C-alpha cells in the first residue's frame, strides 16, 4: 500500500514537474539561432545564395520566423546591406534566400551573417532575437585563375535605362589599365588596390549583339572585355480584347509593343490565364491567342495576359461576358437583282451565330464614294432590301456589314457590290439659245444648247433632234438629227417665222422639248448701248421691262469676245427678274464684254431689249493710234487717226492727248498746256475729250521748223504709252507757191515732149514734111489772096514727068563736097540715076515744062533769091529705065519708092535734096502743045523753085559724075538755075 502511495505521489510529482517544465519552455524565448549558414555565389546572375537551417522546432509543426541578415563587403565591418526575411519555418527546415548584388560578386569578398526571431502569434511576447551567426565569407576571386586582368559581369542582360556596375580585377598593381565603353574611355572608382568599379547609368540600347566594354593593360597586349546585352523595355500589352465569331473559339488579340528579343536570348513570351476556369495557355503568337470555349457555356471570362522575358513581366486583364463579345463573320453572297432606273433589290447571307441570335445588318448605298442611303435590317441568315429613289444610269455601291443585334460589340467585315441603274429618258429640256444672222440675204439661225447634266440626262445622250416648224406654213416640218458630240447646229431659213423644237435622245427616249421661235425677219435689233462697270463678282446687269407679256429674259454675252468663235454664253432669267450678275471664270481685265438682254415673249420669240458693254476692269491703252499727217503747210498740218477703233481697246476711250514739242518754240500754243514726260523732258499737251474726234489741226506753227507730235488715247485707267514722237518739218512760205507753179509746168513740158516723141511722125508730116504739100502752104494762100486768085497748084497727077532724078547720097558724098580736092573717081558709086518718064525724042532740045516748088521752110535763101532755075532735062532715057513710068500712077509709085529709098539712104539734116520742079504751064494739060521755041530763061515769078540744096552748093551743076546731085533732065537743052 505504501509502495502504491509512493508510486502515486511520484507520478503526481512527475506530472507536476512535467507541467512545470512545459510552462517554462513556452515562457522562455526560443533559441532558434540559424545554423549551418552556407553562402555561395551565382556569378551568372550575381546572386549570393544563402542556405541555413533551424533545429529547435521539435514542438511545433510550423512557426513563422523572422531572419535578419547582414552583408558586408571587403571586410566584415563594412556592412553594405541589412534586411529581414520572414518565412514560416516547418519542421526540420533548410532555408534558402538570395541576395542580388549590384557590384559583380567577383570584384569583392562579401561576408554574411544572420540572426532570427520567432514572429508567430502562437508565441507570446516578448520575443527576442537570437544571437548572430558567425560571418560567412563569399570570395569569388579565388577561382578566377591567373589571368592578369578580369572584367565583370560577363554577358549581363539588363533593360534599357537600367544602372549597371562593372568592375575589373587586375593581378598586378603596377599595371595601368584603361577601360572603354564602345570606344569611349570610362573612369571608375577604385575599390581596392587592384579592383576598380564603373557605374553606368541609364544604359541605352545600341545593337542586338550587345554593348562592348573592354579594358586594356597599357604597354601590354592584354585586352579583356565584356558584352552588356541591353534589352528594350518590355511593354504592357495594349488593346487587349477577346471576341468570338461562333461561340466556339475566343480570339484574344493585343499589341505587343516593342520587341525585346536579343540573339541567343529567349524572346518575350505571352501566357493567357482565365481565372474562373483556372486554365492557362502559352500563346503561340506575340499578338494573338486562341481560347477554346467550353461546351458548358461559361458565360463570364476573366483573362489575364502576361508578357514575360528574362528581365521581368507585364500583365493586363479583361473581364467580359461571352455574349457581349460577338464579332460576326463577314456577310457573303451579296447580289443585286431587279435593277431598274430608280430601284434595286439587294440580297445577302450571314453566318449564323447560335440558334437564337439575331444580327443587325447595316446596308449602305454609296454614290461617288459617299453614303447616300443607310438602312438597318435585322436578319437571322438571309437579308434582303429594296433600294429606291435611285437615279437612272448611275453607278452605286451596296455595302453590308452586320453585328449582334442584342449586344453590339463590333461590326463584321463589309461586303460590297457595285451596280448601275438602268437609263431613263432625260428629265429636263435643253437650255437652248440662238443667234440669228443674215448670210447672203437668208436668215441663218445658229442654235446653241447646253449639255444636260448627268442628273438630268439619265443616260448617255445618243443624239439631238431639231424640228423646225414653219409657222406660216404649218404643214411643213423639217427634222434634223445632230450628233451627241455637238452642242449646236446651224439652220438656213427664209423670211418666214419658225418654231424650233430641240430634244435630247438617249436609249430610253427623248427629253422634253425646248421651244424657241425665230422670225425670218430679224427686224430692228438695235438698241442704245449702255456702259456698265465690272466688279470682282462679275457684271451687274439690269434692264427695264418693255412689256408685261414677257415670260422671261435672256442675257447673252461672249466669254472670249476677241476670238472666233467667241464662245457665246447666255443666262435664262425669269419674267419677274430685272437684274442679274453675270460672272464667268473667263472674264479678264482689259477686255470689253458686250451684253445683250433679250425679252422672251409669250410666243417664245426673243426681242433685243438692251445692250450693255463693260470691262471687268479698265486698263490703260497699250498702243497708240497710227497717225497720218496731211495738209502740211508752213504754219500748220493736220493729224488724223481715223482707223483707230475705240471698241477694241482695254478700256472705254475717253479722248486723246496730243503732245507737241519743238525746239524752236518754248511756249505752248493756245489750247495746249505744258506737260512733263517720264524722261523729264517738257512738251505741250492738248486734250481731246471726244473719243470720236480723230483729227486734229496743228496751227500757228513756224515755217521751216521741226515739230514732234504724239497722239495717245486715254481711258479711266490712264493714257497710252508716251514714247515715240513723230517728226514733222514745216516748209518755208514760198515753197508751196513754187510747187504749185513749177510742178505743173514741168509736167506739161514733159507731157508735150512725150507727145512729140510719140507723134513725131505725125508732127513731121504736119510740120515739116519731106515733100511739102503745096496746098497747105501759107505762101499759096498769100499769093492767092494778093496777086492771082486764079493761080493754082499743079497736082502731081496732072503732071506728066519725063524724068525724075533720084539722088543717092551716101555718107561719103558729104566728105567729097567738103574736100574738093578729092578725085571724083572715088565717088563713082554716087552716080545719079535718071528716070525717064516720057518717051523722049532724041533730038528734042526745047525747054521742058518748068515746075517750081517753093518751100520756104527748107530753103529760105533760095526763096529769097526770088528765082528758081531750070535744070536741064536729059531727053535720053537710060536703057535700064524703060517705060513703066510712063503712066502717072507708076510715076507716083516710083517717086514714092525712090523717095523713100532716098530717105533711107541720106542722112537727115545733112542731105541736100534737089527738088526738081516742074512748072505747070498754061498748057499743062496739052501734051501736044509743046513749045518749039528755043529755050529762054523764064522768069519764074509765079512758081518758085523749092530747093533743098545747101546754100553754098547752089551752083551750076557739075559734071556728070560730080555726085552732088542727079538731075532728071526734062530736056537736055532746058537747064534752069
Amino acid at each position, binding site marked *: 500500500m505504501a509502495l502504491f502511495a509512493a508510486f502515486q505521489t511520484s507520478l503526481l510529482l512527475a506530472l507536476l514537474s512535467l507541467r512545470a517544465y512545459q510552462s517554462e519552455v513556452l515562457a522562455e524565448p526560443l533559441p532558434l539561432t540559424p545554423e549551418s549558414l552556407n553562402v555561395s555565389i551565382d556569378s551568372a546572375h550575381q546572386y549570393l545564395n544563402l542556405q541555413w537551417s533551424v533545429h529547435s522546432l521539435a514542438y511545433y509543426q510550423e512557426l513563422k520566423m523572422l531572419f535578419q541578415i547582414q552583408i558586408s563587403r571587403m571586410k566584415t565591418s563594412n556592412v553594405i546591406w541589412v534586411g529581414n526575411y520572414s518565412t514560416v519555418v516547418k519542421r526540420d527546415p533548410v532555408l534558402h534566400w538570395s541576395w542580388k548584388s549590384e557590384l559583380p560578386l567577383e570584384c569583392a569578398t562579401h561576408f554574411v551573417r544572420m540572426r532570427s526571431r520567432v514572429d508567430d502569434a502562437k508565441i507570446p511576447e516578448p520575443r527576442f532575437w537570437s544571437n548572430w551567426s558567425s560571418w560567412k565569407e563569399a570570395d569569388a576571386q579565388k577561382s578566377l585563375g591567373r589571368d592578369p586582368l578580369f572584367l565583370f559581369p*560577363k*554577358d549581363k542582360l539588363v533593360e534599357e535605362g537600367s544602372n549597371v556596375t562593372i568592375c575589373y580585377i587586375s593581378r598586378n598593381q603596377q599595371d595601368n589599365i584603361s577601360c572603354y565603353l564602345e570606344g569611349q574611355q570610362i573612369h571608375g572608382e577604385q575599390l581596392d588596390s587592384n579592383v576598380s568599379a564603373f557605374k553606368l547609368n541609364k544604359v541605352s540600347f545600341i*545593337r542586338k*549583339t550587345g554593348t*562592348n566594354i573592354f579594358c586594356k593593360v597599357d604597354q601590354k597586349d592584354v585586352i579583356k*572585355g*565584356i*558584352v552588356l546585352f541591353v534589352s528594350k523595355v518590355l511593354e504592357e500589352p495594349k488593346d487587349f480584347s477577346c471576341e468570338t465569331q461562333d461561340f466556339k473559339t475566343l480570339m484574344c488579340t493585343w499589341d505587343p509593343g516593342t520587341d525585346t528579343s536579343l*540573339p*541567343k536570348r529567349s524572346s518575350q513570351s505571352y501566357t493567357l490565364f482565365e481565372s474562373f476556369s483556372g486554365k492557362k495557355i502559352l500563346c503561340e503568337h506575340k499578338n494573338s491567342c486562341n481560347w477554346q470555349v467550353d461546351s458548358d457555356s461559361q458565360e463570364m471570362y476573366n483573362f489575364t495576359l502576361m508578357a514575360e522575358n528574362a528581365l521581368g513581366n507585364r500583365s493586363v486583364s479583361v473581364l467580359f461576358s461571352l455574349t457581349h463579345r460577338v464579332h460576326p463573320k463577314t456577310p457573303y453572297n451579296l447580289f443585286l437583282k431587279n435593277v431598274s432606273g430608280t430601284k434595286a433589290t439587294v440580297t445577302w447571307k450571314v453566318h449564323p451565330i447560335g440558334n437564337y441570335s439575331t444580327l443587325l445588318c447595316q446596308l449602305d448605298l454609296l454614290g461617288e464614294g459617299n453614303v447616300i442611303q443607310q438602312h438597318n435590317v435585322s436578319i437571322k441568315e438571309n437579308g434582303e432590301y429594296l433600294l429606291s429613289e435611285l437615279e437612272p444610269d448611275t453607278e452605286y455601291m451596296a455595302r453590308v456589314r452586320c453585328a449582334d443585334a442584342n449586344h453590339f460589340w463590333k461590326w463584321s467585315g463589309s461586303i460590297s457590290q457595285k451596280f448601275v441603274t438602268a437609263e431613263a429618258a432625260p428629265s429636263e429640256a435643253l437650255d437652248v439659245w440662238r443667234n440669228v444672222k443674215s448670210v447672203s440675204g437668208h436668215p441663218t439661225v445658229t442654235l446653241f444648247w447646253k449639255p444636260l447634266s448627268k442628273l438630268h440626262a439619265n443616260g448617255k445622250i445618243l443624239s439631238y433632234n431639231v424640228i423646225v416648224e414653219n409657222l406660216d406654213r404649218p404643214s411643213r416640218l423639217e427634222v434634223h438629227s445632230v450628233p451627241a458630240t455637238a452642242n449646236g447646229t446651224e439652220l438656213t431659213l427664209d423670211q418666214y417665222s419658225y418654231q424650233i423644237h430641240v430634244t435630247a435622245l438617249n436609249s430610253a427616249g427623248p427629253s422634253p422639248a425646248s421651244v424657241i421661235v425665230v422670225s425670218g425677219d430679224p427686224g430692228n435689233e438695235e438698241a442704245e448701248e449702255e456702259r456698265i462697270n465690272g466688279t470682282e463678282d462679275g457684271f451687274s446687269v439690269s434692264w427695264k421691262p418693255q412689256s408685261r407679256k414677257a415670260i422671261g429674259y435672256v442675257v447673252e454675252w461672249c466669254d472670249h469676245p476677241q476670238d472666233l468663235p467667241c464662245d457665246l454664253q447666255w443666262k435664262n432669267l425669269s419674267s419677274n427678274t430685272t437684274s442679274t450678275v453675270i460672272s464667268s471664270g473667263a472674264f479678264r481685265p482689259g477686255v470689253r464684254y458686250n451684253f445683250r438682254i433679250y425679252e422672251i415673249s409669250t410666243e417664245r420669240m426673243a426681242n433685243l431689249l438692251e445692250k450693255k458693254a463693260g470691262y471687268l476692269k479698265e486698263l490703260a491703252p497699250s498702243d497708240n493710234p497710227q497717225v497720218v499727217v496731211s495738209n502740211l503747210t508752213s504754219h500748220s498740218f493736220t493729224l488724223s487717226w481715223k482707223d483707230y477703233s475705240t471698241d477694241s481697246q482695254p478700256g472705254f476711250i475717253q479722248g486723246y492727248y496730243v503732245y507737241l514739242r519743238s525746239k524752236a518754240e518754248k511756249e505752248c500754243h493756245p489750247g495746249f498746256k505744258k506737260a512733263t514726260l517720264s524722261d523729264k523732258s517738257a512738251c505741250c499737251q492738248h486734250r481731246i475729250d471726244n473719243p470720236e474726234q480723230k483729227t486734229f489741226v496743228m496751227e500757228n506753227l513756224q515755217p521751216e521748223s521741226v515739230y514732234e507730235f504724239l497722239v495717245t488715247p486715254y481711258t479711266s485707267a490712264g493714257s497710252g504709252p508716251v514714247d515715240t514722237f513723230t517728226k514733222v518739218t514745216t516748209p518755208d512760205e514760198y515753197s508751196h507757191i513754187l510747187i504749185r507753179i513749177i510742178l505743173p509746168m514741168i509736167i506739161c513740158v514733159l507731157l508735150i515732149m512725150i507727145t512729140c516723141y510719140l507723134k513725131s511722125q505725125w508732127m513731121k508730116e504736119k510740120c515739116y514734111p519731106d515733100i511739102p504739100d503745096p496746098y497747105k502752104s501759107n505762101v499759096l494762100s498769100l499769093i492767092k489772096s494778093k496777086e492771082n486768085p486764079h493761080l493754082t497748084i499743079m497736082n502731081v497727077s496732072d503732071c506728066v514727068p519725063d524724068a525724075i532724078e533720084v539722088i543717092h547720097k551716101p555718107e561719103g558724098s558729104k566728105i567729097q563736097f567738103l574736100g574738093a580736092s578729092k578725085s571724083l573717081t572715088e565717088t563713082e558709086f554716087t552716080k545719079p540715076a535718071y528716070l525717064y518718064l516720057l518717051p523722049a525724042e532724041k533730038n528734042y532740045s526745047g525747054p521742058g515744062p518748068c515746075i517750081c516748088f517753093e518751100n520756104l521752110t527748107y530753103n529760105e535763101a533760095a526763096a529769097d533769091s526770088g528765082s528758081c532755075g531750070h535744070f536741064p532735062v536729059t531727053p535720053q532715057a537710060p536703057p535700064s529705065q524703060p517705060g513703066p513710068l510712063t503712066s502717072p500712077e507708076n510715076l507716083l509709085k516710083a517717086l514714092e519708092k525712090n523717095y523713100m529709098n532716098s530717105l533711107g539712104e541720106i542722112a537727115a539734116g545733112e542731105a541736100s535734096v534737089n527738088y526738081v520742079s516742074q512748072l505747070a504751064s498754061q498748057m499743062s494739060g496739052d501734051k501736044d502743045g509743046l513749045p518749039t521755041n528755043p529755050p529762054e530763061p523764064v522768069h519764074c515769078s509765079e512758081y518758085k523753085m523749092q530747093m533743098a540744096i545747101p546754100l553754098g552748093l547752089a551752083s551750076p551743076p557739075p559734071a556728070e559724075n560730080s555726085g552732088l546731085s542727079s538731075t532728071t533732065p526734062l530736056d537736055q537743052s532746058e537747064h534752069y538755075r
Partner: protein
Amino acid sequence: MRPQLVQRTLLSLVLGLLFLSTAATGKCSGKYHELLQQLQNQADLMQDTSTLLDPYIHLQGLDQAGLKEHCKESPGAFPSEDALRGLSQRGFLRTLNATLGHVLHRLTALQQDLTVAREQGRNIRGFRSNIHCMSQLLRGSSEMETAEPTQPGPGATLPPTPVSDTFQHKLQGCRFLHGYHRFMHSARQVFKEWGDSRCRSRSRRHRPPRALQRGARRMRPFRRDERLMPRGQLPR
C-alpha cells in the same frame, strides 16, 4: 556604307555565278587551265574581306579604336603561305579542302549572327567542288610523288567550341575570319604561281599532269624564300 553594301552585293553575285557555273555543269571540267583559272578567280573573290570580315566587324561593334588591332589572325590557326607553297599540288589541294571544311563548320556557328555567312558557305562548297575536280585531274596524271602529310587545318589549333564569354567569342570570330581571308589570299597566290610557273620551267613537284605536260614544260618549282607580296587587303 551604301557603296560597301553595293560592292559586297556585286561581289557575291559574281562569286555566286562562278560557283553556279561549276554546280550547273554537274561534272568536272577536264581542262586544267580553265579549272585553274576558275580556282584563281574564286580564291580572289573569297579573299575579299568585304564578303565576311567587314560585315562581321560592323555587326559585332568591333569597328572601334582599340579593338581593331586585336582582330588579327591567331598564329597557327591557318596554314601559312610558305607552308602552302611547300606542298605538292595534291597536298596543297588536300590542305585547302580540309581547311575549308573547318571553315564551313565555323561559319555554320556564325550564321546566327551573320546572314552573309550562309551565302559564303555556299561559295565555299562550290570552291571545294572545284578543288575536287582539280584533284581528280591531277590524279589522272601519272605524277609520281611521295606521299606527304597535309598541313594541319584550323580545327587542330582553334578552340573546338566557342567560349562562353561573348566578348572573347566576338574577338575569336573576328580573328578566325581574318585568318580565313588571309588563307584564301595565300591560296590565291599559290594558284597564281601554278599558272605562272607552268610557263617557265618544269618542276618535279609542281609539274602539271602528264596529259598537260606538252603545254606546260616550263613550270618551275616554288622557292622557299620566294614570298609574294600580299594584296594589302588584310592587316598583317
